[in-house]
């Protein structure tokens, strides 16, 4: 036991405080003084012993904890002494695990548009149905085929989910559908790359410039489409982002007042986690005359990503005064409960 001597001395001093005063004769004041000094010293020694038995996390700050323990023993003679000792042993026996050092951060769940889209095609439950390997394959094939009439952005993640399905027919149909989507965009990219190359890229003559800029704009659109439809992931997504950004900047250098392209620039930077630059581009797009309903949702999302929730709420408030798109109403409502 750590420094049990403290405890022994404290006990002996306390005994001396109670009974040693008799040697001082009948002087009541001397009696009291003797008791108070020795009882105080015993309390301090007991606190010195007790603090060593406390879990380390509870001994900081050291001096106030010591004073608290000593104070308890001093203020309530005998019972205070026993109370401190009892408390210490109870704490040792029943103490909880160490508290976590800080809050853990959890990933934000992905917004799941196919579970949410109101009206139109009823997609809720489709993901669950498609991934249910015990459902009849023919019915799942039918559900999969129906996805061809759903937008690529919604259909792609569902198709990708079933690429690892136990049924080969389902896997192959999903692959065929995904491949067709991706092929259409890549063919268009190849065509536009050809046109861009024919105009010698950025070294285009003034006569070639309109064709070159049109090709660059289309290329930025097409690479963005790959990202928007979730057709690329990981390094390929980063590559598509970089390419879209490259061609977007080429056009912006020649047409700096194109508000829609400025918004795209912002969204690309945003997707690339360059949040400050993205915010700047969003404000520029607003300044260039793009309606607030088109820009503010992205700006609010960006502020949310930055952790500036009050700003996000303010922006959504601003948005509510504009005639926002119907699909944004639930989001605006969420941020403005009143």
């Amino acid at each position: 036991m750590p420094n049990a001597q403290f405890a022994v001395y404290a006990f002996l001093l306390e005994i001396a405080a109670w009974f040693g005063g008799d040697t001082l004769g009948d002087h009541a004041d001397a009696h009291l003084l003797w008791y108070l000094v020795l009882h105080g010293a015993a309390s301090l020694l007991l606190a010195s012993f007790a603090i060593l038995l406390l879990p380390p996390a509870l001994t900081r700050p050291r001096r106030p904890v010591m004073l608290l323990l000593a104070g308890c023993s001093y203020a309530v003679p005998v019972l205070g002494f026993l109370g401190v000792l009892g408390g210490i042993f109870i704490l040792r026996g029943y103490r909880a695990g160490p508290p976590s050092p800080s809050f853990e951060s959890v990933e934000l769940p992905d917004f799941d548009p196919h579970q949410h889209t109101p009206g139109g095609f009823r997609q809720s439950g489709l993901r669950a149905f498609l991934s249910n390997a015990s459902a009849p394959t023919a019915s799942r094939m039918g559900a999969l085929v129906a996805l061809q009439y759903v937008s690529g952005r919604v259909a792609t993640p569902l198709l990708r989910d079933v690429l690892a399905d136990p049924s080969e027919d389902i896997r192959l149909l999903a692959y065929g559908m995904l491949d067709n989507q991706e092929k259409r965009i890549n063919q268009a990219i190849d065509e536009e790359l050809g046109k861009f190359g024919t105009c010698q890229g950025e070294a285009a003559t003034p006569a070639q410039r309109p064709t070159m800029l049109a090709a660059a704009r289309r290329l930025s659109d097409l690479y963005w489409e790959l990202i928007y439809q979730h057709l690329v992931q990981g390094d390929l997504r980063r590559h598509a982002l970089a390419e879209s950004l490259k061609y977007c900047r080429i056009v912006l250098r020649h047409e700096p007042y194109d508000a829609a392209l400025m918004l795209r620039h912002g969204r690309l930077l945003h997707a690339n986690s360059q949040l400050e630059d993205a915010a700047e581009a969003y404000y520029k797009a607003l300044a260039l005359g793009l309606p607030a309903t088109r820009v503010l949702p992205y700006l609010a999302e960006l502020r949310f990503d930055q952790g500036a929730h009050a700003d996000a709420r303010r922006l959504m408030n601003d948005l509510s005064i504009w005639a926002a798109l119907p699909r944004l109403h639930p989001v605006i409502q969420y941020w403005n409960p009143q």
Partner: protein
Amino acid sequence: MKRPTAREADIALLLEGTFPYVSGGVSSWVNQIIRAYPEYRFALVFLGSRREDYNGFRYELPANVVHFEEHFLYDDLPAREKPRARAGDEPAFEAAACLHEKFTSGAPLPEAMQAFKSVAHAMMPGGQLPLDDFLHSKRSWEIVCDRYRKYCTDPSFVDYFWTVRIMHAPLWKLAKVANGLLEVKVLHTISTGYAGFLGTLLHQQRGTPLILSEHGIYTKERKIDLFKSEWIRDNRNVFQRDPTELSYFRQMWINFFEWMGRFCYEAADPIIALYEQNRLRQIADGARPERTTNIPNGISLQRFAPLRAARPEKVPPVLCLIGRIVPIKDIKTFIRAMRSIVNQLPEAEGWIAGPEDEDPAYALECRNLVQSLGLQDKVRFLGFQKVDDLLPKIGLTVLSSISEALPLVILEACAAGVPSISTDVGSCRQLIEGLGDDDRALGAAGAVCNIADPQGLADAAVALLRDETRWQAASRAGIARVERYYTDDLMFGRYRTVYEQALARAGKGD
């Protein structure tokens, strides 16, 4: 190249779109089989789409090939002379209509097979149902119109009419081939489809025993093509369309190939698959379980074992996809994975070793993808290469296919001590990770990833290339697995029994 001809042979191999015009796993296997039995005289019947799609032999014909003939199903389809009006033989068309009713109603296979027998007989040269009657007779027109009205959910009659013609016309060509084929004792088809249909016709007409060896599952591979094809029209508008149904013409093609497969399964005995999963699939598609069996591929250790000594000491950071550049190999996923691999391992290179002439449009797509991903310096198209030259120079073989059976290329890589990364298709997981407990105890000869998952493929490849110890362990596991389970001696022994039994049946008149 000299084309041998003969009046008779022991075994006729019915080959659709493969040996000797196309290189690849199935062709190598055919080459192996013919050379393994010099005591048998082989006749080869090659079926292709159009003559212009094939440029010269990729393999030298072995000495025991005594006869070779080739037929192109979509050549000479247009009529050479002006058609004349014809009525069409009523009973023959009645039998054809009855057969189609059996397809539509999903009648039991033996019943449909019986109906098919009489139609097939009428389709033979000199029969009551010649091609001209199908193409130009009044009765034929009436049946087409009738079935369009009854069943077709697509509004375009013109598309329906031409789909029916294009789909059926090659069958008369096959009937002609069957009629003129030399005398053989045994028929061996390497797939169902058109080659299997030819085998079925011959089996019915002559009673010759028919062996079916399926590498991939033909109907499944056709389905892949059909799911991906964009030339099949869908003219239904939003009110005519059931969103859960494939376009009518696409479904028609799928049904057509499924029925051809069923007829072949009904005629063939034995029906051989490369591994258990495919055998079960054959049964699900209509094969009788008692006729099915598995004979896995095997390779020659004498050929590949010496390549291990030719390897450099340090593992080359080269990933090689050995295979034809066709959509089923999903070369684009390999190229996409290379983008990620190069980001993580800048010294890595991707090689694609395989002929590009089978699907030039797809090959161009792949090249364009390399360019649009900025990989011009990192991905090389090598064209057809000898595997023996290639294997000592590479660090990993990659197979990104969306469908495979039991790929020889993984076995060859294993035998040469090169680990493989493969998609989880066919028996690839079994080849890389092992099948039973004993097999699995040998360790993994590489890694397996999902189809169309470039990031997963890239991560698996980089993990192996970066960890020399793991790479060496994978190399040893691959060598041990091939030496124990996948040698050609075992395969040849089992096929010898198959041929001997079939020849014995032929002797007894089946």
